[in-house]
């Protein structure tokens, strides 16, 4: 579904952000990009989305891509429905307007994410988490096969993080969407991802199954501080916590 081969990126005058990054992702799989600020997580997402061209290597991606940016603040305060309907843009001709079928598709996408009641509200009145759901609905409305999300769970409270993760898991398992997302929360990777990419220092990249890659040692190395893995008694989920006292 997504095949990245020896991808490298640098801005015109800047240093290499990442180098020799390869991975492949099958339909319905989820990949999480982890790394410190400025290591190129968002850049990698944009390369996959075709918004940026890699400096070297190539990325092959089958199917329609739905890109969900981290923030969404349009100049004009469109209604939620209008925003989701814009997901149909690639299916609507240059000199045409969306048809009734397009509008039905947008409504269905809103219902699927449980935000049908928002349709006529202005996006300007929505919270950050609600906007993320609207953008995911827009991606669904575009008939996306691949979902690229830039920190979808950032700035959400714990309950909303859990809702977001279960929504993404449902989209991957039930609809077979291929998902690539960035996060600063390794626990989220353990929670929903099949594979993980750690963007270390320049040129150093680790890629593999999430359980193999997201180890205490690797993550401590990645963030430059002590990271601990906890398996809460009686539960199946593992947690990664930062030991803040390790940085003084």
């Amino acid at each position, binding site marked *: 579904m997504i095949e990245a081969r020896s991808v490298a990126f640098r801005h015109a005058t800047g240093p290499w952000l990442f180098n020799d990054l390869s991975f492949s992702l099958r339909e319905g799989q989820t990949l999480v990009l982890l790394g410190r600020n400025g290591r190129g997580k968002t850049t990698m997402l*944009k390369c996959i*989305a*075709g*918004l940026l061209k890699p400096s070297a290597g190539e990325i092959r991606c089958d199917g*329609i*891509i739905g*890109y969900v*940016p981290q923030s969404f*603040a*349009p*100049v*004009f*305060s*469109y*209604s939620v429905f*209008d925003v989701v309907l*814009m*997901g149909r*843009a*690639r299916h*609507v001709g*240059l*000199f*045409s*307007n*969306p048809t009734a079928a397009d509008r039905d598709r947008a409504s269905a996408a809103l219902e699927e994410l*449980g*935000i049908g*009641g*928002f349709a*006529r*509200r*202005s996006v*300007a*009145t*929505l*919270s950050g*988490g*609600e906007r993320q*759901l609207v953008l995911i609905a827009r991606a669904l409305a*575009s008939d996306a096969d691949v979902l690229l999300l830039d920190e979808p769970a950032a700035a959400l409270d714990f*309950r*909303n993080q859990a*809702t*977001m993760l279960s929504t993404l898991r449902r989209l991957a398992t039930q609809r077979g969407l291929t998902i690539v997302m960035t996060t600063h929360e390794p626990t989220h990777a353990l929670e929903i991802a099949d594979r993980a990419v750690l963007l270390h220092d320049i040129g150093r990249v680790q890629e593999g199954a999430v359980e193999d890659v997201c180890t205490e040692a690797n993550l401590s190395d990645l963030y430059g501080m002590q990271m601990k893995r906890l398996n809460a008694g009686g539960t199946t989920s593992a947690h990664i916590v930062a030991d803040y006292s390790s940085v003084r």
Partner: protein
Amino acid sequence: MNAGADDRAIKSTYEARGFGPGAAITGLVTLLLVAAVASLSVGRYAVGLGDLSTIALGWVGVGAGREAVAEASWRVVELVRLPRMLIGAFVGGGLALAGAALQGVFRNPLVDPHVIGVSSGAAFGGAVAILIGLGAIGLWSMAFFAGLAALLLVLVMSRSAGTSSVLMLVLSGVVVAALFSALVSLTTYFADPNDTLPAIVFWLMGSFASATPERAIYMLPVVALFATPLLLMRFRINVLSLGDEEAKALGLKVERTRWLALCCVTGITAASVANSGIIGWVGLVVPHLARALVGPDHRVLLPAAALLGASYMLLVDLMARSLIAAEIPLGVLTAVVGAPVFLVLLHRTQREAWRA
């Protein structure tokens, strides 16, 4: 995940207005019809509604037609007021449509057709035509092609880095507008103070007084030619207004779409400047009024702005030719009316219809 959403009393602009886009468009069409009838009827030589309807029915072959009314009445209506009304409606509607589209394309509610330098280019072309003594068709085509040349100049300047961002476009537009304004000043400096200078100055101030049936015949199709694609691509303008990156991610060919819209805007603006000088504020104020009425969705906003712009221009023209004995220049009147309206709108709508 919508905890607290119901508590928030903020309603969308749609719910707050209490009427749908369909009702708003119907209202605007009615307003335009009223303005059109008024501009055919009112004037120094008043034509009653009875005579007017007899003449109008005659056009479609119903009733006695113009033979049944005084000759002066049908001559005033058919040869003077009808072309003036049609040109006024097309200029006003075209400029408002162009402004609304530009605000969407540039993601900036404060731009209007002057920002991309087209008006100044067209003004320069027209001023040169008057200076060297070309007739109406010469003036018209010089203004039109100079407006297009201004857009091409903006295109070349803004693409210096390989792609043209919105910021580079606006900056290049400001530079080109300033350049052509200076050239217009230079032209007036060389103009004969007894002859061509007043002609240039009054033309630039804007007026429909020169409207003739012949002018309407080559003015209206040009405006329609450029306005039609712009109206048809209004859903695309919604997507463009989200920003280049998002529009590209949603599958748009961003630059191609943007330049198509800009060419249409240029055609409309140049045609209207060529015909009736620089009429400012319409392209800025009317889109805001329309947005307050129907909301930000360009699928409804563009037709609404065109209808409202046409009515606005007809009413302002009516004021221009009936407030005092002489005609007030239109450009002056649109600014005098537009500036305070715009101030009020800014205060009332900045939190609802758009956020900077």
